């Protein structure tokens, strides 16, 4: 059975109206009605009380009705067009982008000759296409836009929400070195645990390698963060900023010259009888290192008794 999407309730695909959609539709109507009554009442009463301080109570009541009525109507309208607002929010980047491009094009067309237009379009398209850093940045941004829609599709298509069909608010997204990070705000009916059980499906819907979800902060359990992974970074070699700290022009500190060790092959090392070994260590109570590498000047003559 097809699940509802708010788009359908909004009438985009009116051919597939189902029982649930009718319910959703009715509930939206009912909420709008409630909003009308409550807004009208509250605004009306407040206006009446404030106004009655300066005018006759009956006049104040009339004023209250006059102000409360339109306020209620405004609230009703807001609730009825909420799906449109939501739609605009979802498509805001695209709407803004298209508007900007159209506006820019119209302005260009009005103020410049044809060849200038060609040059400008060539630059705007050519530079990002040719400079890899800009290109990668733009592609990453495009993925951010796409992934917001993909997440919305996930919520609408297979993540069971609440009875009224409200979807989580998909807030903003930004590129990360491995993919994207998207912040969302859950509506009643979902929790992190619900989403954690569906990460595989979400990854498929986002064309990603894997998806992780966790709380975005300590405080609010509705405020979540999706991490969408498209690339693996853990196989890369990681450098460190320590190397940049080094000033290549510093002079070298003089150092105790290292004595090159001898006896680097098995036949060079004689079989040492246990007796000789004991005698040697008695002669040199600090014989703690292979002589060749005793390069640490500070530790050669420690007297423990100084320290305990």
């Amino acid at each position, binding site marked *: 059975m097809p699940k509802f999407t708010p788009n359908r309730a909004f009438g985009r695909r009116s051919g597939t109206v189902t029982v649930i959609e009718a319910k959703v539709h009715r509930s939206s109507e009912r909420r709008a009605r409630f909003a009308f009554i409550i807004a009208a009442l509250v605004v009306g009463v407040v206006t009446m009380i404030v106004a009655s301080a300066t005018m006759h109570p009956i006049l104040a009541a009339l004023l209250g009705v006059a102000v409360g009525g339109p306020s209620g109507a405004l609230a009703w309208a807001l609730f009825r067009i909420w799906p449109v607002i939501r739609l605009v929010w979802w498509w805001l980047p695209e709407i803004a982008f298209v508007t900007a491009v159209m506006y820019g094009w119209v302005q260009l067309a009005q103020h410049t000759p044809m060849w200038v237009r060609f040059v400008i379009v060539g630059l705007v398209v050519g530079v990002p296409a040719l400079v890899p850093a800009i290109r990668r940045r733009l592609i990453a941004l495009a993925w951010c836009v796409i992934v917001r829609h993909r997440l919305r599709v996930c919520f609408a298509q297979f993540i069971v929400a609440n009875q009224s069909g409200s979807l989580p608010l998909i807030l903003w997204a930004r590129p*990360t*070195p*491995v993919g994207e*990070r998207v912040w969302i705000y859950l509506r009643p009916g979902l929790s992190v645990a619900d989403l954690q059980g569906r990460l595989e499906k979400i990854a498929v819907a986002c064309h990603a390698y894997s998806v992780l979800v966790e709380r975005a902060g300590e405080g609010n359990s509705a405020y979540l963060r999706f*991490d969408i*992974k498209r690339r693996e*970074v*853990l*196989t*890369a*070699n*990681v*450098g*460190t*900023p*320590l*190397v940049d*700290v*080094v*000033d*290549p022009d*510093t*002079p*070298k*500190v*003089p*150092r*105790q010259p290292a004595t090159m060790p001898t006896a680097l092959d098995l036949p060079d090392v004689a079989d040492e009888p246990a007796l000789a070994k004991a005698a040697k260590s008695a002669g040199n109570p600090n014989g*703690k*290192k*292979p002589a060749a*590498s005793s*390069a*640490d*000047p*500070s*530790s*050669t*003559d*420690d007297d*423990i008794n100084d*320290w*305990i």
Partner: protein
Amino acid sequence: MSSIARDPLGTDRVPVGPGLSMFDPMFVGIDEFGEAVFLDVVYRNLLAAGEPGGGKSGLLNLAAGTAALCDNTRLVLFDAKWVELGPWRHIADEFVGRDLDHAISVLRRLVTVADNRYQWLLAHERRKVNRYDDLSVIVTIIDELAMYSTVLGTKPQQEEFESLLRGLVSLGRACGMPVIAATQRPSWDIIPASLRDLFGFRAAFRCTSLNSSNIILGQGWAEQGYNAADISPTNQGAAYLLAEGGLPRRVKAAYLSDADIYAIADYAAWLRRPTTAAFDWGMAA
């Protein structure tokens, strides 16, 4: 002998470093989202474990490099293999090779210092050293811990080493004396769980089995999907990093090539050159 090596309470402090401090979180690498991971090592201690070739010594060298460049920081190095931490021996206050007696005496000194520092804190009505105290940070780095606790020396020596180390690890964290250690498999004979749990940060590099992974990170993590045996053997330096209380995180440690290590060590030696005492290697030899 150079004067850097004396007086662990830091009255002849190391000359000024380039503004780095061990009290700043240390950069260790990136997490699976490509974001930098920093560890607050001074107050925690760090244990790296995993199979040979996993990248433990790489992480230790990174820590040593960071400490080397930090202002007013002393290095105490234990490396039975000589070459892993050897590049830092010139700037270390102590470098312990294969001599367990030396290791024990150094640990004993460190524990005494820690003890004195707590007395000092008590006298100042405080519980924790911070960056504004005029005390040096003494970073103890031990590679292949098992060499000291099971291979070298005699049984009583090993036991003494272990108990002193336990003392240092548990005492060091609030008095600016962190311990960073690496071992292959912290099973009970090498590091008992009680000692393991004193290390606030634990990095599990690649392991051969689910059990080893659990031994490093703690019981039950592998079953929840945090299994260091899953790390590809060709991906050296990748690890699960467990910070106190949190979930293990997949990280990739930053890596210093040999050339980088020597460049940093030389630079650190220059920064730390004694400005008052004349250099006299003849005395040291």
